[in-house]
């Protein structure tokens, strides 16, 4: 397959910092590209041999169960697709991967990844954000730090604000 059909994140934010991205992304369902490392559709990844240079991406309607989670545990990274920025399923998927199944590798947001979603994404356990190509990096870095306080626990903090308040009131 010619390289032109592969996508490359122009701007990847990894753990809050811009980073040069190694990985290409393929959305072709039926053929593994030559290029390595590459992120490919989940089914294609499941059907191929274990290769640390291959990683799966999940469509937003994926239902993660124990079996799939066990398979994904072996992936060097898991990407979750946002077909449209208004499709919020990926947030739940990321939390399930991290919180329920304890996935430790990179969880990357791909697709319609816009500046104003990044804060929520990072709270849900995405540690790599492949910005849509027209997004501005400086806007994105600013948006990531939009809030210094949150009411709910998330992947970033296990403590709800109401619990933190009680702890602080009790001198903890």
């Amino acid at each position, binding site marked *: 397959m010619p390289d032109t059909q592969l996508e490359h994140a122009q701007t990847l934010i990894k753990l809050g910092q811009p980073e040069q991205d190694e990985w290409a992304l393929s959305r072709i369902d039926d053929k593994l590209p030559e290029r390595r490392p590459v992120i490919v559709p989940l089914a294609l990844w499941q059907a191929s041999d274990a290769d640390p240079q291959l990683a799966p991406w999940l469509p937003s309607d994926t239902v993660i169960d124990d079996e799939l989670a066990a398979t994904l545990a072996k992936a060097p990274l898991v990407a979750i697709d946002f077909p449209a920025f208004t499709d919020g399923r990926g947030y*739940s998927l990321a939390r399930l991967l991290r919180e329920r199944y304890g996935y430790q590798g990179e969880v990357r947001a791909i697709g319609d990844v816009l500046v*104003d*979603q990044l804060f*929520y994404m990072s709270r849900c356990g995405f540690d790599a954000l492949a910005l849509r190509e027209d997004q501005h990096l400086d806007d994105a870095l600013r948006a990531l730090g939009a809030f210094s*306080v*949150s*009411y*709910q626990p998330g992947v970033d903090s296990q403590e*709800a604000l*109401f619990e933190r308040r009680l702890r602080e009131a009790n001198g903890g």
Partner: protein
Amino acid sequence: MYRYDTYDQTLVDERVAQFRDQMARHLAGRLPEEEFRPLRLQNGLYIQKHAPMLRIAIPYGMLSSTQLRALGEITRRYDRGYGHFTTRQNLQLNWPALEDVPEILADLAKVQMHAIQTSGNCIRNTTSDQFAGIAKDEVEDPRPWCELIRQWSTLHPEFAFLPRKFKIAVSGAAEDRAAIQVHDIGLRLWHDSDGSLKVKVLAGGGLGRTPMIGDVVREDLPWQHLLTYLEACVRVYNQFGRRDNKFKARIKILVKALGIEEFRRRVDAEWAHLKDGPQTLTQEAVDAAREHFVEPERGDVSEQATAAFEALRAENRAFARFVTNNVTDHKVPGYKAVTLSLKRREHAPGDVTADQMDAVADLAERYSFGELRVTHEQNLVLSDVPVDQLEALWQELESLGMANPTVGTLNDIICCPGGDYCGLANAVSIPIAQALQERFEDLDFLYDLGPIDLNISGCMNACGHHHVGHIGILGVDKKGEEYYQISVGGNATDDASLGKILGPSFYREDVPGVIDKVLKVYVEQRHDDERFLDTYRRIGLKPFKERVYA
């Protein structure tokens, strides 16, 4: 009421800064309208027919006098000197300028207010009983629970892009005054036989184009698990709710498609993982929330004062009318809750001018510990008035035009903004309300009819709750002309029901006449003190239909 600490304040301040940044990027062309839209909606900003519209959150309807004054000032500075209280206990401004909205949000933040999640496909402002904390039939004050839900749902990182909007209502009394059966999730707080607090959880209610009554997901959730259980419900909805068709995207469609058993099974499967995890409530956490809603320092009201009040009520007919209709019993003897009627022919139902806001803020301070509530019937409530001050308050309300002794009557119409403001409207609704208020203004006639909810929406989105009005009026469009469809038999309280359509729709001019016929059938057929709703339930639609289309 709830007061912010530095965490809450930081969060709303940061929200203002975030929106300022988004607005600047939008105006600079870096954030196109399609992508700005969901962001502005989640800050309450719609673009309507004539102008932008801003919806300000009033969490579970609780408002301080300071906040109300600030709202008045905002309507003067940025709008046309009035605002509209909505059926969701919020306040809408009809004419703000787009570029001013960050400034308005900054002004709101100064009085611990915001417009977060008042619109958009996210968890909206939680609504509740306007008599929370003072109702005689209350089992559990819903406000601390509403506040816990407010915090849980505010900027929830997982649920900002749900398939569709999500509304939660909470009731803690014997009688449901929060319409919990027509919300995406309805919660009822109750005590089991051991006196331990349980939460009944309903899901899948809603109005709009496919009205539905919610189903019970769980009868007796122990209170400790409220937030984790809500999280499980919303997660199931987020994952499985339809996203292909926005008219089929509400949770009610999912609950009906799966069936309540399967929906419950999925929620329980999800909850099994969340239960007892972070966000499980402890007694200490609930007590901390309750501390914000302590009883005010009510002085004793002497027996003489109560006797004098009863005497005045017996001799002054106008005062008696006011007391009977607009004054509600309080759990503390010697105190009453007073409903300020926002239903006057000169204004749209729910509209209040800036000067009135100032005046009402003063009244709240002088008569009711500086607090107010907004009702889903689009009125205001002063919740803690000693009986010996009722007369003075009544006279002040008279001069403000807010003492109409018609609360709960046909005249107390719930009405959406309709075609005068709303870009989605099929027809106007405010002029219909005004025409009806004009036609049916004779008090003796209204009292003889007894309690009747008449609700008007300008289109099937049902912002005016027409499906659950005892009489509902819906604006419809037929080949570009405005018509009105009339239904009877809806009800929003405990025995909730959806109204049935009488038949073909009517011209605007004919609506008052048709309502008159509907009322005549009731008056002729009722037994003794039977309410309109009960007569309808006994005799059915047919007699109404026959009279109206005769």
